[in-house]
């Protein structure tokens, strides 16, 4: 039923195009990549290079209904696993209170008027996409709810290590998932990640309170 409805709605586009052909994938890529190069006039290269893709981003840019092949997925997992870095202390679960703040805030690294905005304290802004503290209703749902994360999984070394690595580079476990590679991309430091880990697993954290 849904498929039929979609087909009907799409039909006018197809008719309007008629026999005229669209550029193929290679032509489109080359045209669009040229557009990206010219998208930020007057901006220094130190900033525009953020728009340049690394190999994993390129693989994970799946247009339309195309699918990630098993080989591509394996490749992304492999390079992502090789990216892990751990804090000097070796301790992967830090202070949950610091983690709570990191999960709720973070407007850093944004660019306006050709420069990185005066550093608002950086954070993970986890609540934009995940439910965490059950008392907080102002949360997004792009990612799954993490309420009760530690209460369900415990806080064993294995859980802590997985959680740390998942935040550091999610693609090592879920290739091309929506989750940003927060550690790998330098968005959060290894120490900041340990605090977010604690916020998720610590039994005292509001995440694990009813």
């Amino acid at each position, binding site marked *: 039923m849904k498929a039929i409805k979609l087909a009907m709605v799409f039909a006018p586009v197809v008719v309007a195009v008629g026999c005229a052909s669209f550029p193929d994938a290679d032509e489109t890529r080359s045209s669009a990549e040229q557009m990206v190069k010219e998208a930020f006039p007057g901006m220094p290269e130190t900033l525009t290079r953020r728009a340049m893709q690394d190999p994993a981003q390129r693989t994970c840019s799946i247009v339309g209904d195309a699918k990630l092949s098993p080989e591509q997925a394996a490749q992304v997992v492999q390079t992502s696993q090789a990216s892990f870095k751990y804090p000097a202390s070796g301790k992967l679960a830090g202070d949950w209170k610091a983690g709570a703040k990191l999960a709720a*805030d*973070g*407007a850093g690294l944004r660019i306006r008027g050709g420069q990185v905005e005066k550093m608002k304290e950086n954070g993970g*802004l986890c609540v*934009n996409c995940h439910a965490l503290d059950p008392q907080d209703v*102002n949360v997004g749902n792009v990612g799954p709810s993490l309420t009760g994360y530690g209460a369900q999984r415990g806080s064993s070394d294995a859980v802590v290590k997985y959680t740390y690595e998942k935040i550091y580079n999610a693609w090592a476990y879920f290739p091309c998932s929506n989750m940003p590679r927060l550690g790998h991309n330098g968005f959060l430091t290894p120490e900041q990640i340990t605090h977010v880990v604690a916020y998720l697993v610590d039994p005292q954290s509001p995440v694990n309170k009813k």
Partner: protein
Amino acid sequence: MNEFRRAFLKLTGGAGALVVAAASGLLASGNAWSAAWNKEGFESKALADAMKSLGATNAVASKDIVITAPDIAENGAVVPIAVTSKIPKTESISIVAEKNPFPLAATFGIAAGADSYVSTRVKMGQTSDVWAVVKADGKYFVTKKEIKITVGGCG
């Protein structure tokens, strides 16, 4: 005497305060609505002072006042609030946002030619109770509604 009024008078120490209400503020100056801006009220920093400036210190809770507004406002800079009074002889409607730096936001003097209904938009710095204060036939009535203010979007 309804139960709201009884409860109210008990808590506020009886009808004595009505005298204060009648004596204070331009709204108590009979039916002709004076154009003088209620400086004292608009510069009040506390709910109680704002109420006092309206003469509404001894106001009675009423179900005949309806506040139409969202439970959650996505943007504190533009919070739509409409107030309908079903109380006969409504003379004025005031809107008071309790936790605003200056709680009294607006007073609408309703002349005979208008329905006792107003709609406007108010800035609210934080989640707060919003009070609608109605003066009708020389008496004061109130109701309130909590409006939650959220931080939205990508933060």
